[in-house]
């Protein structure tokens, strides 16, 4: 189903989820967001390889973040769940030991949920959208062509740069280069120098592209006029999602102003309570 959606709809959905992921702080809300994001990922019909890989990454990230935050949580209050190394005295000095803190685990879980929401949303876009369609959608966004078209071109050249880097390393081998055979200094110098032909190639390519664009009437300041139908229901849904994310951001800003004692409005008490418990 996700594959049939217009790439612009998916881009805006990902944008809304990413915005919410950095705005929300409550574990329950973030868990719901990560759940929606995971559902989107499943709707993208990932291959077994993608599914296994992303689940492994999700588990490792969550585990890593929770354990590291649980062990090294520095804020107060903090509640010890158990000690890995109990407190002890050594040479007359007190050591507090190494403990796992409940608040640390919670904080780690919140950070992990943020990450998972963004990751699954991004993955759902990637696995359900051919690169060409993604480029097409980006170049059709209502922003100056100088930004949309050229950023798309830059992304498109990335595989070329990677291939060139591989070819330059082959060229080194063909000239008899073996790492460390000529000493550490020379090896580092040689390894760093592979950037030179790749950089020079990139400059040459961008010059060629710029020449081709200029001679074909390209105006970098013009808005893209290309027509690509965007189903109105998809446009409405994606704009609604983006609007929701912006509203949440607005509410969080108001709540922050209240917490910082900059702005307090009596009429917004209900909103403050909502933000405190759910956002």
């Amino acid at each position, binding site marked *: 189903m996700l594959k049939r959606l217009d790439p612009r709809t998916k881009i805006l959905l990902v944008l809304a989820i990413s915005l919410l992921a950095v705005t929300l702080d409550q574990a329950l809300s973030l868990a719901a967001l990560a759940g929606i994001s995971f559902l989107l990922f499943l709707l993208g019909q990932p291959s077994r390889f993608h599914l296994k890989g992303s689940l492994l990454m999700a588990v490792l990230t969550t585990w890593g973040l929770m354990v590291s935050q649980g062990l090294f949580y520095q804020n107060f209050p903090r509640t010890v769940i158990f000690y890995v190394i109990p407190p002890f005295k050594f040479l007359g000095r007190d050591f507090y030991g190494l403990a796992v803190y409940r608040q640390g685990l919670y904080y780690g879980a919140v950070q992990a949920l943020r990450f998972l929401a963004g990751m699954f949303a991004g993955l759902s876009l990637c696995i359900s959208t051919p690169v060409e369609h993604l480029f097409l959608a980006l170049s059709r966004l209502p922003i100056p062509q100088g930004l949309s078209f050229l950023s798309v071109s830059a992304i498109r050249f990335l595989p070329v740069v990677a291939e060139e880097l591989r*070819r*330059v390393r082959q060229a080194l081998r063909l*000239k008899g280069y073996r790492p460390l055979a000529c000493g550490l200094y020379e090896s580092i110098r040689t390894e760093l120098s592979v950037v030179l032909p790749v950089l020079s190639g990139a400059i040459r390519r961008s010059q060629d592209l710029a020449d081709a664009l200029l001679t074909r*009437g390209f105006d970098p300041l013009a808005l893209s*006029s290309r027509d690509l139908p965007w189903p109105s229901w998809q446009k409405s849904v994606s704009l609604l999602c983006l609007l929701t994310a912006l509203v949440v951001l607005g509410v969080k800003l108001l709540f922050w102003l209240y917490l910082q004692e900059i702005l307090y409005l009596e009429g917004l008490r209900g909103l403050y309570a909502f933000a405190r418990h759910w956002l």
Partner: protein
Amino acid sequence: MSITHRNRPFLRRAKPLVQVHRLTYTYPGRQVPSLQGIDFSVAEGEFVLVCGETGCGKSTLLSCLNGLIPYESGGELIGEVYLFGRKGPLPPQEAFPQVATVFQNPTSQLISDTVAGEVVFALENLGLHPEEINHRVEEALSFVDLISLKDLSPAELSGGQRQRLAIAAAIAVRPRLLLLDEPLSQLDPRGIEEVLRILKKLADQGLTIILVEHRVSEALPLVNRVIALEKGRIIYDGPPKDFGSPKEDYRALPPKESPSSEPALEVRNLCFAYPGKERLFEGLQLTFYRGERVALLGENGTGKSTFLSLLAGLLKPSSGKIVYHLRREPGRLKYSMLLQDPDLMLFRPSVYEELSFAPQMLGLSTKEREDRVCKMASTLRLSPRLPEPPFSLSRGERLRTALASLLTGAPQVLLLDEPTTAQDQKNVHTVLSALAAELIIFSTHDQAAAKAFAHRIIYFEDQGRIICDINAQTCLKQGS
């Protein structure tokens, strides 16, 4: 090439489309002008070939007409350029759509994800109505015989098809002047034929065309005027019949000594396929002998480069073996290979350092290194360039630098992937004359160079199939 100096009146025709008067242009940071006192005019409907050796100013002249010079390149431009009666050079955006340009590298100028989208791009920039755009896309793609491929990605096209697509994108805006900058240089013979056929059709319809090309013999039958440049000056301007076309003369190449019967390299039952693609080589059996020079011919995509990469160990065979029989000699590379894009082989800050890299890797003394560098720089006409950064050199010089950087490693087996592509004849001559190794294997589209330099010619066809493995002498006699 017979050179004729003629008086060229400033206004040759009643209604010239292009008039260039005493044009001199110097690139920023250079002392010597790239164009000096250029005078010519082009009438509507003329098909003009601009030729000359690499670095003579052909492409610079074209850039003065499409406005990239001086508006994008900067530099100092003296003299007058008139386009359609307007004083120029016009900025590229103003020259568009009356002037359309097709560049050398078809890959770097294609920007859309479909064949049709490529043609649409410039039409949308013109702000045309979608219906008119569709009509023109159909018209242009039909003209270059690509209409059946309009939904494909340009990446799926052959080199010749891509260049035809670039031409379609250029003519779709209905220009009055079409400029082409070496559109044939990177194409195989079939691609060249395809593009020339399209250019002939355009010329027959009366479009004014200025074609910059160093593959003169292929282009000459089509044009009705030739302008030859040398060191930034016009040395010939006249009809093609009076132009002494440069013959592909390789008689001055070092004589070929007979190869020995001692095998140097053996390919045994080689099979290879790129991941997820059809098998390219199936049970390939070949033996190469000491002292042999072997040319690999065939169209793009037939597996020549892959074969060389397999020999150089850059790719691993799916099955089968490649056996080097030559005994390793100290102070020499066992084998080396010139990549198709020599620029990827240049990574040192100066030509001298570039040339001394391989000897350094071989552990040679400073004296030995210097000897090899100086000898090779002299052979490949690079001595004055030794202190300069490789990327400041011309294309021909960069190729020679990359080659010299391999030859200073004195490889026993030398592999070269299209060393003649996009090079003028003088450069090809210099390069071929300098080649030295126990076994030389090179791929090329230049059949004349292959016949003149190689002992043996191997023709590849689709799927890496070898359709012919013959003695070059036989090939010459047969004139095939």
